[in-house]
């Protein structure tokens, strides 16, 4: 079974927010609510500075606390690719998943259900990349099967130093940032 994940090259990324805008149009997210976002961090003292830019979203963790805490089973791991999804009809909007997520990746949709990144599974099932990946003008994002050593994502992970966000949370995130 595939284990879908993302590898993002922070060296190429310019933080232009195209991924954020593409997600918004692709998935028609409500005004002011985003499934992905950019973080910028500048360290040092002028002029000796370092800026890191990261495109962030749900990490589709191997051990997702949002799934284990969900009282209705709405939050679940999809049988294909291990993508973490929400069945909105089953969601009661209790926010337990929002509280459990170390990445603050979820919001409550105005229609009352918890919502977040789906890895654009509607496109992925058709063999396409998620919108954020396919739009990226710097081609810094790579989507693929982390269990397949031949996938572009796996090969990049094997060849470059990388990190995940908050690995100490113990949820085994599946989005990696090349340094």
């Amino acid at each position, binding site marked *: 079974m595939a284990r879908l994940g993302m590898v993002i090259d922070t060296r190429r*990324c310019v933080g232009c*927010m195209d991924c954020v805008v593409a997600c918004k149009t692709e998935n028609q997210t409500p005004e002011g609510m985003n499934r992905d976002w950019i973080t910028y961090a*500048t360290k040092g003292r*002028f002029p000796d*500075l370092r800026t890191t830019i990261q495109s962030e979203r749900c990490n589709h963790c191997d051990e997702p606390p949002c799934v284990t805490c969900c009282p209705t089973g709405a939050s679940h791991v999809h049988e294909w690719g291990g993508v973490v999804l929400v069945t909105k009809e089953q969601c009661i909007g*209790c926010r337990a998943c929002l509280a459990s997520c170390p990445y603050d990746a979820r919001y409550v949709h105005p229609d009352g259900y918890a919502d977040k990144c789906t890895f654009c599974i509607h496109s992925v099932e058709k063999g396409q990349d998620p919108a954020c990946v396919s739009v990226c003008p710097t081609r810094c994002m790579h989507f693929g099967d982390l269990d397949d050593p031949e996938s572009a994502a796996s090969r990049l992970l094997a060849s470059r130093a990388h990190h995940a966000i908050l690995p100490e949370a113990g949820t085994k995130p599946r989005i990696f940032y090349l340094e």
Partner: protein
Amino acid sequence: MNQVSRRRFLKITGAGAGVAAAAGALGTLPRLRAAGAAGEKGQRTVPTICDLCFWKCSAIATVRDGVLWKVEGNPEDPLSRGRLCPRGTGGVGAHFDTDRLRAPLLRASVRGEERWTEVTWDEALGRVAEKMKRIAAEHGPEAVALFSHGIGGTFLRHTMKAFGTPNSAAPSFAQCRGPRDVGFELTFGEGIGSPERTDIRNARCLVLVGSHLGENMHNTQVQEFADAVGSGATVIVADPRFSIAASKAKHYLPVKPGTDIALLLAWMNVLVREGLYDKEYVAAHGFGFDAFAAEIQPFTPEWAWPETGIEPDTIRETAREMARHRPATLVHPGRHATWYGDDAQRSRAIALLDALLGSWGRKGGFYQPASMDVPTYPYPPYPKPQRGSVDNPAREDGSGDRRFPFASEALTTGIREATITGKPYPVKGWVVYATNLIQALPNQAETIEAIRALDLLVAVDVVGSEIAGWADVVLPEAAYLERYDELDVELFREPFVSLRQPVVAPPADQKPNWWIARELALKLGLGAYYPWKTIEEYLDRRLTGAGLSLATLKEKGLVKGPRPPIYYEEGVVPEFSTPSKKIEFYSVQLKEKGFDPVPRFTRPAAGPPGSFRLLFGRSPVHTFSRTQTNPVLAQAMGENELWVNADAAARAGVATGDRVRLRNQDGVVSSPVRVRATQAIRPDCVYMVHGFGHTAKGLRRALGRGASDAQLLTRYATDPLMGGTGMNVNFVTLEREA
């Protein structure tokens, strides 16, 4: 408090439809509209051209059940390579924008009060034509001027030429790239153009002087910048601000604002003194090198140090790095180049540095672009204006020279000045297309003074911009996804022609520019200049002339020609249309007109004690002052911030998130803007993204959000070579809001 009970949840669901309607969100609008979409079911895609900026990327729009869904890059497009920039991706918002103009408007009270009467197109265009005829009768047709920006201005330009006026200008010259193109024209005999002929993709060393690629989001440039960074090219950035590009650089040079020429001279000094320049190339193609070398001899890194703040060792090291990678070292000419009033000479210094590195015409430097031969439409000849254009008149000293001898395009600010003074002759009518002159030109008081001297101001726009607010007649244009436009016959590595075509219908009574221009011409009695009845007929005639057809373009969006040789290495013959037919290291034509034949550095004037120099730039999610009401892009960035050096901010008693007003040296005070206290900028300047701080009532989503740099640009330094308006010459202090 964060707990939402089951009861509350049910309440939310019950109110769902109401919430959606009130929110006016992108996510909800299409659903509301879907009900009214004339029964269209399923999904269709339409190739077209983006218009969120003026790069003209080819795109593919998707419509779902009759409702516009998304716009993506056309994979066949050499410019976008299938990937639009964030503005292009957010282009759907241009269609759904609730702040759009919906019907033609006539002014109903004094100018600038923004009170209107909705009228029919017939009435609006009738009024414009009547006024234009009256102005022509009293002052001649030359007394009507056109300001336009982008490919959409083509047909209005045609109508105005047919009317008999030579006065037509775009801010893209005197307020943007003009000095750059003139600096390169004076050196190589050719400008840079748009898209820039920069071979960033193949550069092994990329030098950016104040150019903030990545924030400045011209798609191809940024894609190739990422390619260059990804493939390990050395990036050198000189900028008072630690930009995104600077964060990718091996060498970041925090240059003092306004001292770039000193840095460029010192780099050239090192290359010449250490014999690191491309001697063969210079010997083969250069003119006046010895005189040039003698001129720059005093400008050592030690001389440049106190001027620029950059240490001599750093200047030497970076110069050597450039030499190591030549000719694949690209000293980027930038784009928005109107900074200090000596900008054409700064651009010429960049051109000369590129010449020393032998990068003009070479792979990894500047390529020779090509375009397809698509014949123009066979219109009747235009009437010859009785008088020349007003923007750059002859000097009164009898020399026969124009006021700005090296201006290679018309000057917006020249037309503005002539409108105020009535010299060399009165200008009484302005037609303004797709350019918000209030935010685009420095010194808003002068623009408003000129407007007060007019008998007619017409604005053609998609939203009610500030310039539309001052207009007598406002004509609502269809958004780019709702219209045909002129063909894009592009100059690029591989030539191509592309088509903008309608994807969806306009939501109200908006009309495409070609229709507006044609109807106006008919009302002016200029029907002979519009032998075609429909735009399709016009486009097909042009395309047929090139052995293509409209049907092909409608289906594919673009047609590419074969890629010709584009580098000297590939057989392009070096040709320079300068007076000497060579690369002019020493410019006799500049000397003859009384200018420095080799660029020299003049220290910029300092501001009042305790003030910051005001710098401004671009955001990747907005274009000029045009996109702030776009509901998608406004979500990505709804207001601008003021970058202040963290130490300077602490001294000024302000912190990140505080709202401050900026007061400039002339007492002009901005609207409130949030502070971003950061290490990433020098302490002697502040920075904001251009285009915010809107004041037009019609721009409801953007009104009063952030501050407007344009409002604070009461001073500008005019480039004596070409009339560009250097705008980085204003200083501000910060006033904290309670």
